[in-house]
């Protein structure tokens, strides 16, 4: 506004390349804030005492031993893996179909379709959870692991859509056109040309969906019958009071999630795409 007051000054170099210590320190502190809780849980999982007290009084593997012999936890892990795999499979099918339609066709309702698919992650999980609960109850549909799967697949679909749509938008349309010009049917073109090219994005979307499903609690809480997924089991035990075994379970969850996220990132990277 008051340009006349700000006298032009000589060129000071590219402003974005200037080093700034306050900025670096703020960034470092933010990473510490993001990771402190994870590190704390991992450290306490090796504590030899029952109380989560600081400083840790001595290290042991006893909580991992107890965890290993805890059949409830193994049942919960088995259920969570099953739910995650089926939900991810459904999300992959629905998400790939949607992404393909959004990328390859022009239609007026495109914004509406995108909005509807994304709504389950715009609205809080509790809304999704109680809405589905009232629906299943009204339909007299008993709650079971299948209702959990339906809930998870619904909010995982948008993840696959985003991943696959990003990949599709990178692919030159001429590949499809060449295939169609050479006489291939649209289905053949998809199977032989498009699908192999978007496969990395589909696989990454599947892994991320599985990870999200494996960790989910807010929606799951309302959709479960008597089955307990791993987060539900932990939640139940936390409400009883902190059991030190929880730290060991949490550590395993953290490390499993980390491995899966790195795997998804590596798959995307090989195809020249990025995870974000």
């Amino acid at each position: 506004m008051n340009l006349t007051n700000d006298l032009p000054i000589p060129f000071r170099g590219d402003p974005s390349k200037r080093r700034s210590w306050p900025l670096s320190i703020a960034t470092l502190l933010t990473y510490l804030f993001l990771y402190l809780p994870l590190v704390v849980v991992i450290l306490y999982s090796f504590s030899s005492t029952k109380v989560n007290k600081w400083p840790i009084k001595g290290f042991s593997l006893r909580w991992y031993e107890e965890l290993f012999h805890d059949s409830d936890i193994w049942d919960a892990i088995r259920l969570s893996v099953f739910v995650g795999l089926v939900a991810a499979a459904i999300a992959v099918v629905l998400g790939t179909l949607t992404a393909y339609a959004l990328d390859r066709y022009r239609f007026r309702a495109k914004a509406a379709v995108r909005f509807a698919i994304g709504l389950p992650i715009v609205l809080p999980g509790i809304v999704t959870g109680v809405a589905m609960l009232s629906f299943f109850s009204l339909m007299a549909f008993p709650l079971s692991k299948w209702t959990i799967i339906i809930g998870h697949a619904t909010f995982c679909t948008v993840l696959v859509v985003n991943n696959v749509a990003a990949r599709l938008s990178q692919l030159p349309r001429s590949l499809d056109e060449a295939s169609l010009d050479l006489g291939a049917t649209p289905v053949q073109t998809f199977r032989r040309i498009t699908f192999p090219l978007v496969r990395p994005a589909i696989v990454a979307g599947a892994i991320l969906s599985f990870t999200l499903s494996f960790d989910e609690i807010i929606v799951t809480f309302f959709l479960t019958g008597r089955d307990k997924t791993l987060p539900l089991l932990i939640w139940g035990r936390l409400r009883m009071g902190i059991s030190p075994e929880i730290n060991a379970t949490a550590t395993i969850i953290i490390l499993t999630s980390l491995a899966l996220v790195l795997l998804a990132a590596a798959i995307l990277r090989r195809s020249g795409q990025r995870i974000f």
Partner: protein
Amino acid sequence: MVASAPQLAEFESHPAPTQRPRGILALLAAPITWMVVFYLIPLLILLAHAFWSVDYLTIDRTFTLENIKTVFTNSLYPTVLIRTFLMATAVTLTSIVIAFPISWFLAKKADRNKELLLILVIFPLWSSYLVRAFAWKTILGTNGILNSVLQWSGLTHEPVSWFLYSKTGMFITFCHVWLPFMILPLYTILDRLPNALLEASDDLGGGSWATFRRVVLPLSLPGIVAGSLAVFSLTMGDYITPSLIGGSPGTELIGGIVADQFGVANNWPLGAALILPILVILMAFVLIANQFGALGRDEG
């Protein structure tokens, strides 16, 4: 909201070989059916519950405004709604302030390790939310790390008891668990911000502050609004953190009350009515976000 068949059938004519109306219906039939049956219809059923009532264990489906009246006249619910709204607002504003430096660093300063640094930002999103909320319980407790450090440094002599089971504790936990949702859209938009604009402002004598306020901030608004929508929405509906970290009288948030109505209190119609104000506030936010272009372009 729902894409109906006649809408889908209207296409802009386009010469590409894939522009076939039958194709689009075949592709979208399954996803749209799924979303309508398992998401949009359930949402409508939930809304309907708000106008029904509960009779012991069964639901009486005669229209009533009793629940809506209760939500606004009961001595507890309006206070809780306002508290939740203020908490969500405070968490959102704080997240913007925390997210800006790290997003700027990732977008403009990080070179070699950029991809790793970005994965480090998104990883917490994929590690259990429950685990991260629970971790704060062990950090904020009277025997926790925070109190140990404070006592060790001589800043306090007695453990501070109001870190845990308090609004302060919930505020810290919310800021932590939702932070990546703010960093990601902010980073994305800052990454696209042309350096030439910064140089131009710099050459014209705009100092760092003037450049930030007049160039960077206005241009990053879509990212800020998108991140705010996510953080605000997640805080408005959460019931895990209030139960783990709050849990004392005067710390209840609306998510916990709704969860109770669908659980132990078993009053689904009241729970559905309590969700209405959340939905109205969020829908208003979505409309505002759309104005800022925070929800992506609407093509086609």
